């Protein structure tokens, strides 16, 4: 009997691997494998015209935070690099916070509509979600640029005498990322809230909980997987954002993604670009592990 069970179990595991194999191969070739090459490149010497020379060097890694003085070759902290790192982390955290603050009520609103209307509201969220990121970045640009909708209206109304300069600032990038990534927060939140059994609310109120207590102790713990998923889906692309800071931040307000591209373009410093890429990856992974841990802890506490 037990031998038969073992056999069935072994077959089940074999099937699992066989069925997963095609996906694993594609991902190994075009997603995971290439990352190892980046790691190798981060320890090489920049070539004169881009690419690398196959000579070991740690200068790429030092370049993440430091710069070499052009006269006496001493190392000192590179303020420009630190500024870019700080801007990237700060704007990404703020984007996650803002999308959640707006996204949670929105997802809740949709999930509590009658079933027929729910499809319509969800449709309104999915259209921007399915719309090209570049188009959406360009769309927010149409509103906030100096001659854009916002400034035109404000000047016509006599509230401003000259356009408020939003474009090419950190605020523009933050607005753009919040706008662009909002659906990524709303959709997983909606999926979680949609599965939420609304009778639990009645149970909570019957037990004399107030609205805040119900939100804090009934709703949030149960929809937590959705919150975690939404935050991951927003934070990760924000930290590595390239298009939005490029279009809305101008050349000056670079985020780390633009800084990496610069190394593979005009900067002609592929090892530094590779080292920056690996660092960005490590920060993202650390953030993910933090999330996963938090999610597991919450699950055990209430489970």
């Amino acid at each position: 009997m037990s031998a038969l069970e073992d056999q069935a179990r072994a077959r089940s595991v074999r099937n699992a691997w066989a069925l997963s194999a095609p996906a694993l191969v594609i991902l190994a070739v075009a997603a995971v494998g290439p990352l190892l090459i980046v790691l190798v490149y981060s320890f090489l010497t920049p070539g004169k015209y881009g690419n690398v020379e196959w000579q070991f060097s740690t200068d790429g890694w030092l370049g993440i935070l430091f710069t070499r003085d052009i006269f006496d070759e001493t190392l000192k902290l590179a303020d420009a690099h630190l500024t870019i790192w700080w801007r990237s982390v700060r704007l990404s955290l703020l984007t996650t916070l803002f999308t959640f603050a707006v996204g949670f009520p929105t997802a809740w609103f949709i999930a509590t509509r009658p079933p027929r209307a729910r499809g319509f509201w969800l449709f309104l969220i999915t259209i921007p979600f399915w719309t090209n990121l570049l188009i959406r970045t360009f769309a927010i640009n149409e509103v906030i640029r100096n001659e854009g909708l916002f400034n035109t209206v404000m000047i016509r109304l006599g509230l401003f005498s000259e356009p408020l300069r939003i474009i090419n600032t950190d605020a523009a990038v933050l607005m753009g990322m919040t706008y662009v990534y909002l659906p990524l927060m709303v959709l997983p939140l909606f999926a979680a809230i949609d599965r939420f059994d609304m009778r639990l609310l009645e149970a909570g109120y019957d037990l004399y909980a107030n609205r805040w207590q119900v939100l804090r102790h009934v709703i949030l713990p149960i929809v937590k997987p959705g919150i975690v998923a939404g935050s991951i889906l927003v934070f990760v692309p924000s930290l590595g954002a390239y298009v939005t800071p490029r279009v809305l931040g101008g050349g000056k307000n670079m985020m780390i993604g633009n800084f990496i591209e610069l190394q593979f373009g005009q900067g002609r410093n592929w090892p530094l670009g590779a080292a920056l890429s690996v660092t960005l990856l490590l920060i993202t992974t650390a953030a993910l592990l933090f999330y996963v841990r938090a999610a597991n802890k919450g699950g055990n506490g209430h489970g």
Partner: protein
Amino acid sequence: MAETRFQPARIPGFAAIAMLAFVALYLPIFTLVAYAFNGGTSIAVWEGLSLHWFSKAWANEAVKSATLRSLVIAASAAAVATTAATLAALGTTRRAGFKGQTFIYVMINQPLMVPEIVTAVALLILFGMVKSWTGYQGLGYLILAHAAFCIPFAYLPIRARLEGMDLSLETAAADLYASPWQTFRHVTLPLLAPGILAGAMLAFVISLDDVVITEFVKSGGQDTLPTYMLGQMRRAITPEVNAISTGLLGLTVILLTAFFLLTRKRN
């Protein structure tokens, strides 16, 4: 009669925030579309209604070939990714946990965890090597790269659908002497179809949406619509970009509407 009852699911202020969110989501898009119909030569000043920029974009060979290329890549990548994701979802759900399961999850979700720019740089280096070794410069690189990052997007809705499925139906089929294949073909697959369709559409749009990886992987003359537009934005922006955006937007809305109508009928 429902109005006077206490509604436990209503939270004060949420509806107002939601309404603001919807306005904020659509106002920029409407502005963008409105400017596509601008008669003037700059994006700054409104000079009357015109279809001038649409005809200009339509006559542009670069726009036409970029559109076609975008669609070919997205369709190919979505087909590959959805097939691989469906198999993987069947492999990783609804069975006892096994050694290596976490590894498979991590692999599949890896593109969601790695910033796009990092993958873009990695593929730039790898495909650069392969291009110089083999001399092959075709669309294969872009399709492979897109298929890889589309897999988790196709996988998630399929897996969600599988996990939400009632196992008792399949048990019933097996009890009625259906073979595993018959059970899969006549019970599991029809139940799973909406998930597969959703996964495929998601993959298609994610591929169509991609700028960063395409920008780094493409060879000369392989612009997709997004990379073409990004290139245009580096120069002075004319309402031609608005017109192209509006066209792409229209396509998305048509596809989505069809998708929603189709899935509604199923239900």
